[in-house]
């Protein structure tokens, strides 16, 4: 296959700034939205995701003014998540220039939303974000309202059943946030992602746990995900996107490079 595995930088947005927490808590300010978007775009990231992490817990919609500014600034695709709970919310976000919308908590409350969005905008615009954690009985189950630890709720639905359901409803892509791995940079949850891959026929994006280039190599090789998303490891400067791309290329993984790179002899 010639389609590149995607490297996606995730920018958690809170009150108009990019923040990053550990295990979804204790958020630190990482910078301005358009500045970081432009920086990652210039570094060669393939896609950006903006999570308005306060929108769902506070019961408000995502603010579209900054989406319009990002759309003017960058020439790579980007997705917006957070507080999108209706076709009209999604329309506002897409018309402001986002390429995709990602729904998470609102889809757990009203799964029909996924189908409504797919019919209106096409399934390629509809991403379902899944926050997942392994329970004591060994099953992965979904969580809602994860932007606010005090509001987060565990649901009875298993992650695998939910991923199957949202595809039937019209999801064009699934982002699997493994909450147990998030923010601690010990690697993606390859076991969980491999299990989800078995039931996921649309693009699957790994999220949570990236700490170094080897983690990306592992998740592409072992879980066969289409993209890998990271935040803190990029924001902190611990791993530059361009260096990561070259290491992936050297490992034989198909990626988009800015400049032609000599083929590596196996």
């Amino acid at each position, binding site marked *: *296959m*010639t*389609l*590149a*595995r*995607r490297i996606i930088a995730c920018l958690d947005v809170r009150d108009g700034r990019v923040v990053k927490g550990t295990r979804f808590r204790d958020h630190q300010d990482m910078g301005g939205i358009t500045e970081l978007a432009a920086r990652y*775009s210039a570094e060669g990231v*393939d896609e950006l995701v903006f999570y308005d992490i306060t929108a769902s817990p506070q019961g408000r919609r995502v603010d579209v003014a900054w989406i*319009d500014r990002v*759309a*003017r600034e960058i*020439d*790579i*695709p980007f997705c917006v998540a957070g507080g999108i709970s209706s076709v009209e919310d999604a*329309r506002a976000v*897409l*018309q*402001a*220039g986002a*390429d995709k919308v990602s729904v998470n908590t609102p889809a757990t409350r009203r799964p029909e939303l996924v189908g409504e969005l797919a019919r*209106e*905008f*096409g*399934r*390629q*615009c509809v991403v379902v974000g899944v926050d997942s954690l392994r329970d004591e009985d060994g099953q992965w189950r979904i969580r809602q309202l994860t932007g606010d630890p005090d509001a987060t709720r565990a649901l009875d639905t298993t992650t695998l059943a939910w991923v199957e359901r949202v595809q039937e409803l019209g999801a*064009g*892509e699934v982002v699997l946030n493994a909450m147990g791995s998030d923010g601690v940079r010990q690697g993606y949850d390859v076991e969980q992602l491999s299990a989800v891959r078995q039931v996921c*026929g*649309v*693009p*699957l994006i790994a999220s949570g746990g990236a700490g170094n280039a080897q983690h990306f190599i592992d998740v592409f090789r072992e879980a*066969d995900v*289409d*993209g890998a998303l990271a935040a803190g490891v990029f924001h902190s400067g611990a791993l530059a996107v361009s260096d990561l791309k070259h290491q992936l290329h050297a490992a034989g993984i198909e990626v*988009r490079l800015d400049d*032609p790179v000599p083929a590596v002899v196996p």
Partner: protein
Amino acid sequence: MTRPKVALVDSGGTNIGSVRYALDRLGADARLTSSADDILAADRVILPGVGAAGAGMRRLREAGLVEVLRQVEQPLLGVCLGMQLLFERSAEDGGTECLGLLAGEVVAIPPAPGLRVPHMGWNTLTTVRDDPLTAGLTAGTRAYFVHSYAVPVTADTLQTTEHSGTWSAVVRNGQRWGAQFHPERSASAGSRLLTNFLLEVSP
């Protein structure tokens, strides 16, 4: 040279803003319009589009733009769904009659082991035939695709991409061009294609 006047056809698709911003970044004189006079008077016409073929054609019919687009004689570029609508028919939405400006039909990308549909992400371009529109987009250049339906290779195919089959990535017949990928979201490859469309192709 004077900047060409670009009519960006307001087809109601949600990527119109992104295409306009891409043209703004290039310094183009682009106007979003559904007026027949504006479209027919422009130096270049771009038909953007995202979503399903049925809804896309319905919007063009409701806006009275089907005949207008058939009358366009200046360079016309369809982008993504806009390219698919230039063809005769699409298999999407149970079969949709399209504009019929290019010969061929749009089909569903078949599922294949290890290949996901929608075809979403950065894929490589392979050149079938050189053209001013694709100048600088050498073999192996990556562009950003998002689609579940695709145009097979036809006599009008300039460049192809591979994903569970070989598909038209860029097409041309006379003054009508199409790009299946999103130039507005394809970084330097996309801005090169749009620049070529503005400055290199001649009416």
